[in-house]
């Protein structure tokens, strides 16, 4: 995909949405807290909400250019939109919902057949039913199929899994992966869920109060959040205030309270003394018993405070001079027989300690 959003300004109730971005991922996640302007951004791209100023180009086609008075109407944009409430037409059957957009797409521009979409999303058994008596997951698939059947050049998904429980989510995600891989339609995917982001996206854009706080590859954003707000939003679990003690041989010594940590400065020109130390829970390794030499630079002796199960994973809260969060597989947790009160050693590699100037 190449979607250019330039000079985009939309006045919303509490702030102005301002976006400047060039998006090229297969799935680009728009990440942000509720009320950050995510849905409004999708509405502008779909042509459902007018912008004060905007230049929007999808592929080679200009959809909106306020400076030249170009505005392509929503029915001519070829953009599929699955809104948060799905907006299935309650007075039509599943079949007629699916055909609603399919019929207005001319044969030569169809990218795939009705049957293929029905097959991939496993809708065949639902086709004769009314949409009002479908379950949440079924409705989700029908809404996705309805949008796909217009052969869109871009798919907008507004928190498509937000209303589903974890079990259903894990069942729908493979469908989204199939859409991404089999149909090759680029998606703008609004969510504030880390799990979905990591499972699906290759690129992300963080929106805070209508402004782009950071944009880039998922990897880059999760490992190098640009500022504290982004780090907090991406729920980097451990964020502690620290101060830089020294820089030696390219390694940085940081003190958090009485604890000394070794980090690799990501920005060579980091001169701030006061920093936030950010550690992601999945980057913490636990060791039971005696501390043994290892390649990890940081060995912290810690006491287990609590263990919370999260699906196949377990979140372990530790006290090691500060509160540290670790994410293990449930299996690892059981094999190590970790329980609250146990003494463990937490290992963190130096590059996994991320510093943000205060």
């Amino acid at each position, binding site marked *: 995909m190449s979607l250019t959003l330039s000079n985009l300004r939309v006045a919303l109730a509490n702030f102005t949405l301002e976006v400047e971005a060039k998006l090229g991922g297969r799935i680009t996640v728009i990440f942000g807290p509720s009320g950050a302007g995510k849905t409004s951004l999708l509405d502008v791209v779909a042509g459902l909400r007018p912008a004060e100023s905007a230049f929007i180009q999808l592929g080679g086609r200009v959809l909106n250019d306020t400076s030249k008075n170009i505005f392509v109407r929503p*029915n001519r944009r070829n953009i599929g939109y699955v809104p948060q409430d799905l907006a299935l037409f309650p007075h039509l059957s599943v079949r007629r919902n699916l055909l609603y957009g399919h019929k207005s797409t001319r044969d030569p521009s169809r990218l795939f057949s009705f049957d293929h979409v029905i097959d991939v999303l496993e809708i065949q058994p639902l086709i004769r039913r009314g949409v009002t008596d479908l379950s949440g997951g079924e409705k989700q698939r029908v809404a996705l199929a309805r949008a796909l059947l217009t052969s869109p050049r871009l798919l907008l998904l507004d928190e498509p899994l937000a209303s589903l429980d974890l079990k259903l989510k894990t069942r729908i995600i493979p469908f989204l992966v199939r859409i991404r891989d089999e149909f090759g339609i680029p998606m703008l995917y609004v969510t504030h869920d880390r799990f979905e982001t990591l499972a699906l996206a290759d690129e992300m854009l963080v929106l805070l109060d209508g402004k782009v706080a950071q944009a880039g590859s998922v990897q880059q954003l999760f490992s190098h959040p640009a500022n504290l707000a982004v780090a907090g939003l991406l729920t980097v679990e451990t964020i502690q205030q620290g101060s830089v003690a020294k820089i030696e041989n390219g390694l940085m010594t940081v003190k958090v309270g009485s604890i000394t940590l070794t980090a690799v400065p990501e920005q060579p020109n980091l001169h701030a003394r006061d920093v936030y130390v950010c550690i992601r829970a999945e980057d913490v390794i636990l060791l039971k018993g005696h501390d043994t030499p290892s390649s990890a630079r940081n060995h912290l002796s810690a006491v287990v405070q609590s263990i919370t199960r999260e699906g196949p994973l377990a979140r372990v809260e530790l006290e090691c001079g500060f509160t540290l969060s670790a994410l293990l597989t449930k299996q690892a947790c059981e094999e190590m027989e970790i329980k609250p009160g146990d003494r463990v050693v937490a290992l963190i590699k130096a590059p996994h300690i991320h510093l943000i100037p205060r």
Partner: protein
Amino acid sequence: MSAEEWQIVWFTAWVSALSTILILPFGLALAWLLARYDWPAKSLVETFLSLPLVMPPVATGLILLRLLGRRGPLGAFLHNHFDLDVVFTWRAVVVALSVMSLPLFVRSARVAFQELNPRLEQIARTLGATPFRVFLTITLPLASRGLVAGMILAFARALGEFGATIMVAGNIPGKTSTLSLAIYQNVQLGQDAHALQLLGVSVVLAFAAVLGSELLLRKKARKT
């Protein structure tokens, strides 16, 4: 019932139905504009539209009489250019019924449009539908319950209209006499038996209208 009474019944049913059908396109457009858009002078139009509801019907009738009479601005125009006389003809009855029942229809239709989730219409647009197709396939069917209810209200109002009709159309037997006018006249002349007969017919007509629309809606619900 005498032939004369049957004529009154048919005439009343016919003008009521005609006025309901006549206000439909105009009422739908007005209700749509009021429900979906903000425009200058909107509240003025709203007030103007509600006037027939709050003003004495006789007063509304008088305004229509002044407007449509041969010396009135509209009446003179129609007479001079189209050789068309309105007052004291069946046309005046239709005009009076339309004016009196329009506000009721617009109110119901407006609520029906407002209750509809605009997201459905927007998403229909992204599925490639033109605004007109969206209106026909999404808006109208989903608002149909409220629209039919509004039409019944309008029809019922037309069936029972008295004050405006008598002002602008008079009560000319065989020409402009409707059920309400005839009942009043019969009571005035002490012909209570005739009045009661016509009363019975009014009840049947009203009952049939409500029942008919109920069945229509139920059939529609089953189909989808």
